[in-house]
């Protein structure tokens, strides 16, 4: 009897260990490609590391102190926050509006959905090239339209006030397709009977939206907001290719600062420290967002 019990006990243990094998490949890749570089990045941020010669010296928190006193970096943090605040609400509101408008059967809806999603498949290089042609001073589409309307020429990418909002607008044009699709998927999960009941009660469209649709897709709203905050904090390509961070540092995001610090200035420790700051900011922003959405749920 005892032998049987021992045997059974051993089998339970054996089964547990073999279960671990199923997640081992994922765990190995996760550790190698995410956790290890993260830890190495943290260690690098404490070094004065020359990218080109790979020589280094431990400097503690000096890189972080340098960043605190660096006007270009502080400007890039400010720009990144502004960019996220400008773009994320638009992604949520416009994405939802498009999804509501296009959540219908038929060919027209399908064609429009494809058109709005179409730009998402383009690379950042193509997108910025297209918009450069549109926004080109003197001969671009915008300049030609302004000329035709008898208005003075306007070059938003060379204006300190307009460069960052323009990059945000280009970004929304580029990847509005993903939030739209996520909202569409969510809308199609809402049971039709609920809408039928609302229609029988003579509920207005607005009441239906506020009291049925939005509560039903609340989790998707949070998902889209979280995804967009993560993505938009990492904005880089559009700014690098459209304005190179200018004019007067008005559109340089943190990732561009990291790129320049590492690859152009060869100060990899400084770049790694800026990366840690960005990671910290993103974690705080995410935590705040989750906390706010959690509180709403409690109500």
């Amino acid at each position, binding site marked *: 009897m005892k032998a049987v019990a021992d045997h059974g006990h051993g089998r339970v243990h054996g089964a547990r260990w073999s279960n671990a094998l199923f997640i081992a490949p994922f765990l190995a890749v996760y550790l190698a490609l995410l956790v290890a570089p993260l830890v190495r990045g943290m260690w690098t941020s404490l070094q*004065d590391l*020359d*990218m*080109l*010669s*790979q*020589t280094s*010296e431990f400097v503690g928190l000096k890189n972080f102190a*340098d960043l605190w006193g*660096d*006007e*270009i970096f502080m400007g890039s943090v400010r720009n990144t926050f502004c960019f996220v605040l400008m773009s994320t609400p638009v992604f949520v509101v416009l994405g939802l509006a498009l999804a509501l408008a296009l959540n219908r059967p038929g060919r027209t809806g399908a064609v429009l959905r494809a058109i709005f999603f179409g730009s998402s498949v383009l690379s950042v290089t193509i997108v910025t090239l297209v918009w450069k042609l549109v926004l*080109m*001073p*003197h*001969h671009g589409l915008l300049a030609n339209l302004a000329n035709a309307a008898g208005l003075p020429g306007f*070059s938003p*990418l*060379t204006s*300190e006030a307009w460069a960052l909002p323009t990059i945000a607008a280009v970004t929304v044009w580029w990847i509005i397709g993903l939030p739209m699709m996520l909202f569409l998927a969510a809308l199609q999960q809402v049971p039709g009977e609920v809408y039928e009941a609302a229609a029988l009660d003579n509920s207005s469209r607005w009441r239906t939206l506020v009291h049925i649709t939005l509560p039903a897709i609340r989790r998707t709203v949070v998902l889209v907001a979280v995804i967009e905050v993560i993505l938009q904090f990492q904005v880089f390509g559009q700014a690098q290719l459209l*304005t*190179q961070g*200018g*004019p*007067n*540092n*008005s559109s340089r995001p943190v990732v561009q600062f990291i*790129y320049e610090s590492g*690859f*152009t*200035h*060869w*100060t990899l420790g*400084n770049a790694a420290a800026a990366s840690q700051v960005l990671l910290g900011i993103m974690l705080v922003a995410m935590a705040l967002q989750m906390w706010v959405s959690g509180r709403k749920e409690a109500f």
Partner: protein
Amino acid sequence: MKMTSHLAAIGLLACAAGSALAQARTEITLARFFGSCEADYGKSIDVKAARGECGIITTLVNKFNATNKDNIVVKPQIVEWGPYYDQLTARIVARDVPTIAVMHESSLGDFVHRKLIEPMDDSFKSVGIDTAQFSDQARAGTSFSGKTYALPFDTHAWLWHFNLNLMKKAGLTKPDGSPVIPGSPEELFAQARQFKQATGKPYFAWQTVNSSASYMRTFLTLLYQQNGAKLFTDGAKPRIDMKSPQATKALKLMNQIYSEGLVMTGLDYGPSNQAFVNGEVGVVVVGTWKIDDFVAQAEKADTPLAKGYAVYPFPQLFDQKAVCADGHSWVMLKGGAKDEASRKAALAFLKFIWDNDVEWARTGHLPISKLTLSSPGFKALPMRSNIAEISASGRGIPLSIPRQRAIQIAVDQEIGNMLTSKKSLKDMQNAAETRVNKLLDSVR
């Protein structure tokens, strides 16, 4: 049976020969900027028919691949100039080093001091490249402590390219058809205003958007034209001085030119040159590398530039002749040649480039061989006599100053901030000094 064995023997022989040929083939990589023009010159080996930087370097490589007797194949790896050094850095760190790479002479020092390039004197001698024939400027640009680290490719400088048709309309040409060139800031403003009044167009175009070098080149030119000008302090820890009277004078002049509306605004590199070709400005301020492209435009009938193009060094506006100059060179970075065969192949290609110095000079750049400089072939090229003085008046940042590319970008951006974003002169000077000195401090 006998016939069958003969056939088998022939087959084996053919296979062996093919295999030997395949083994002897040596592929090397060539990292460069200068643009990509495969559609026009992808298969051409007619170097004489090629135009512009891209056309000439592309056909030179094609010709070498087609004509060398050692079964060497050079594979170009073309990158845009802007991110070229960033990519090269990443490739060095990732140990994916090209066999040969183009490099500005102003950037060489950073790679030499990190021991990423080794002296090449003996290697050059082994293939017949005579370093004694390097021009003085090329020698100074590629030598450190008396040793040669790169094969110079050209000397390039900052020029004024004139649309003579518009200059004539503005009454700014001499009886011989050459342009009236200002000799002082006062003359510059008088002529630029006269031009604008007569043609309704701005006098200048230069890159004012996304610039990483053009402001700096104009600034250095105006600075070096003044007696006693010095941008960096001496010593082991150099510091930039953007507030010297000479630097301030140069910056104020640039600011006044821009704020008076004498420059076409909002243009980045391509559009600024296109504005010149389209006849929208009188002068474009850009380097030697555009000469052949503009000459080609001027040869076409019915274009705004038709039979109306001339080029001169940036005019002397202050005490002495000086113009910002640099040079392209070819380097063999450590780890680029994987074996002795690759190394020999790379040297064979460099010898070919050296022998074809005069072809590259057709772009507009000055040649780096004394022999070419005095050759009838070079002297016969259009307008080269106008710019020959560059070999004496060309100046760059001293080679002893590290991180020149990054410094150039930082100062350039700050000058741009002053001109286009109305940052005050004082704030701009402070910001440029802070950024550059931080860079200099980071040098280990």
